[in-house]
């Protein structure tokens, strides 16, 4: 590892804004998002996640706690958690330092207005407000 790689300064708690704009099934975007949120919680930062477009379905109530069973491997006996279950777990683990926001227009367009408890459906014009309040903001994915 070269000397130039270590450019970290003392880490204060920051407010991180992550906007997720993408369909969760198209790539590993969803996995990366969950990993980043988990790492940010562990590091002690505050996170605001804004989901837009297809990402609003990550926390749909209809997903339940587990993914549908794999009928090709029904004897496996284990059930993979749904994205809604994972997000609920992250919110519980964060103990107040994670806010999960869902764009209302995108949720209405996709018929996922019934969201799990703990997430907040928000008007789209609040996006800029939340971005401005954060210390660092990043948008992941594309519509």
């Amino acid at each position, binding site marked *: *590892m*070269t000397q*130039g*790689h270590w*450019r*970290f*300064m003392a*880490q204060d708690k*920051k407010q*991180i804004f992550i906007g997720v704009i993408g369909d969760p099934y198209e*790539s*590993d*975007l969803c996995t*990366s998002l969950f*990993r*980043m949120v*988990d*790492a*940010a919680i*562990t*590091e002690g*930062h505050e996170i605001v996640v804004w989901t837009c477009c297809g990402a609003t379905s990550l926390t749909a109530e209809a997903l339940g706690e587990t993914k549908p069973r794999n009928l090709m491997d029904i004897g496996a006996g284990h059930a993979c958690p749904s994205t809604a279950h994972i997000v609920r777990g992250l919110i519980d683990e964060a103990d107040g330092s994670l806010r999960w926001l869902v764009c209302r227009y995108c949720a209405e367009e996709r018929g996922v207005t019934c969201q799990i408890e703990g997430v907040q459906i928000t008007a789209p014009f609040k996006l800029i407000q939340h971005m401005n309040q954060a*210390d*660092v*903001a*990043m*948008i*992941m*994915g594309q519509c």
Partner: protein
Amino acid sequence: MLSASEDIIAVWCWAPAESPLMHWSLPVTDSKGELFRKDNHKEELPSRVAAAVRTPRPLNFFWEKGCMSTYLLIESRDFSENPDVDSLLDTAARLAEAGHTVDIFFIQNGVFWARKGANRRIATLAGQGVALWADDFSLAGRSLSPQDIHDNITVAGVTTLIRLLTRPECRPVWH
């Protein structure tokens, strides 16, 4: 009114809020470095600013010389799925040339760029001072080991990504 005989140097540039020039409207100076406001009222610039303004500079002087920023470019795609990846590497090279601190973090399919021999630009970017990282989870998911990775790239986890992201004044770009 300004006379035709005076040597007027108009300095128009975009400068960030912390630049001293942002405190002055319509920064038009004569050859002595004295500032003329819109109402032609002469005011003397601070000597260090006057010296900088007096010396001819390209319009992006303040951007290049006085406004170093930290950029975190996160590449999640391989060239085979999106040819735009090359433009991100171009951007990183130009930012590094301009003196900014640049980190590229390869994640998801972007880790295919991290393989040895995958792209000759990796060595060039490392030579320019760009820090290169590859996500360990993404590598493992694609059956790539640290031995398969270019020598100039550091294998790191997502905690490192968060630490890079939360550096002061860091500007992240997810691609």
